[in-house]
């Protein structure tokens, strides 16, 4: 009875969302239906291998970056969770999460500084082997960029989850004779699963939509966000850009939904 009357408080946000996102998105989806040459841009998109390749690149790269992110983040999170009190812990965590707020362009720029032609890596390898190693501008650079912006978020999510693990669980496994590896594989990893799914989903979605990084790295690989951008800006091909955007949005959302479903199933078993 006290709760009913609060509904109006939801109105402003709902209106903003409806007016500025949902309706425009529907409009955009509709635009994709009205292709340039009369035909539906969706058909154009679906029948064009170029776009498929672009999509494939994007998904593959995002998946690889996500996987690598998780593999790196788990040990870091475990370390931070196991060591709650040492000097410099706060600083270390700050360093690990500082890049959280960097826009894609900055990440791209940093990767160039790292692995570009003038980058520190090229400089070092040049001096050591007289043969500069440069990989900022290709698939590898983009991968590194995605890794760069995914790691901080994954680390903070996983650290929080690792800190939540009841230390009595590994202790119990211990009294039952489990060694360190067995405790990790049987107890810790399953306990981290929901967080892994959440962090993975987040990393994947961000990578799928990452435009700034690819834009700055000026890579030769066409990832979908760049393709959309090109269609829109270079050819003013708004229908195709719209259709591709809708496609990218749908795929990302779908994969996220599956991930959430998995996480929920996990949680559901936990409730």
């Amino acid at each position, binding site marked *: 009875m006290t709760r009913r009357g609060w509904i109006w408080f939801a109105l402003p946000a709902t209106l903003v969302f409806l007016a500025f996102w949902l309706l425009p998105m529907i409009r955009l989806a509709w635009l994709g239906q009205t292709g340039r040459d009369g035909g539906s841009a969706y058909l154009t998109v679906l029948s064009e291998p170029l776009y498929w390749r672009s999509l494939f690149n994007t998904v593959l790269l995002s998946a690889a970056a996500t996987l690598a992110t998780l593999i790196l983040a788990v040990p870091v999170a475990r370390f931070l969770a196991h060591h709650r009190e040492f000097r410099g812990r706060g600083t270390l965590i700050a360093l690990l999460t500082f890049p959280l707020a960097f826009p894609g362009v900055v990440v791209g720029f940093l990767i160039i500084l790292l692995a570009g032609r003038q980058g520190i890596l090229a400089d070092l390898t040049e001096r050591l082997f007289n043969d500069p190693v440069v990989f900022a501008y290709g698939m590898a650079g983009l991968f590194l960029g995605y890794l760069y912006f995914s790691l901080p978020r994954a680390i903070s999510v996983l650290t929080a989850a690792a800190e939540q693990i009841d230390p009595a669980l590994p*202790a119990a496994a211990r009294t039952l004779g489990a060694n360190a590896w067995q405790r990790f594989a049987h107890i810790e990893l399953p306990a981290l699963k929901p967080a892994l799914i959440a962090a993975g989903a987040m990393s994947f979605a961000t990578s799928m939509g990452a435009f700034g990084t690819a834009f700055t790295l000026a890579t030769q690989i066409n990832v979908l966000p760049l393709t959309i951008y090109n269609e829109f800006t270079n050819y003013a091909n708004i229908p195709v850009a719209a259709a591709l955007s809708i496609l990218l949005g749908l795929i990302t959302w779908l994969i996220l939904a599956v991930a959430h479903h998995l996480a929920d199933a996990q949680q559901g078993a936990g409730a």
Partner: protein
Amino acid sequence: MSLSHQAHQTLSDTRHIAPPLDAPSRLDAGLGWLLTLAVASFLIGPVLLSVLAGLTRNYFTGVQSGLTLRWIGEVWQLYSDTLARTGIVALGTLLICLLTGVPLAWVLTLHPGRTSRILEELLTLPVAVPGLATALALIVSWGTLPLLRSSTLFIIIGHVLFTLPFMVRAARASMQGTELIQLDEAAATLGSSRLKRFLGIIVPNALPGILAGSLTVVTLSVGEFNLTWLLHTPLTKTLPVGLADSYASMRLEVASAYTLVFLLMLLPLLVGLQWLAARTPRASLS
């Protein structure tokens, strides 16, 4: 639970006291430490490089060419308007997020049912769906409105869509559980009206979350590029847009100096977030 907190004071421990037997093994801790350092240097190394480049007279020749603030001065001259605009956009975004997001968070807390879940799921779509798509949608439907398209408000709208879910989530985190609902009910039995309860009880008690949400919103807005790049017009450039410009067309040193300015702008926000994150568990309602 007192079985538990097996903290590891081992690192700084000089006293001759045996380590707990259930501490993670040396190997485990050692590897973790190494990897953590490696990841931290991967994340921070390039930032340091960039800072250095922004202060070096000629990065191509190296630090031996000397340090200078000249590039920062140049950035200031060229891009100071983007700094101010970024601030305005961030504050505008924050204001709208506060006015719309916090009340919504409260309603979602009160009605944790299916409809709420769907609404919240919908609300996070602008985060899940790539920013380009959102920006395109905004341009094709609202870009035709005179004045709006070329005003800063247009960018603020885009940022609100992108940051609102974070505000809602953070505010909800502070409202979670039945405690705040009970406080509200308690205030109701004491005769307080809805608005008074919202302002006098709910907002103050959800403050840690709202603060955290605010910092997140500002941080995200300051760094937002994907949407802004499409939404901006020559008169409404923000910092990240300027950054992208400078990366493409300026000397490496200027671009680095600009990045340095950006980092300086972010720093207090991130420190604030850290501080809050460290505090919130204790600040939670008892």
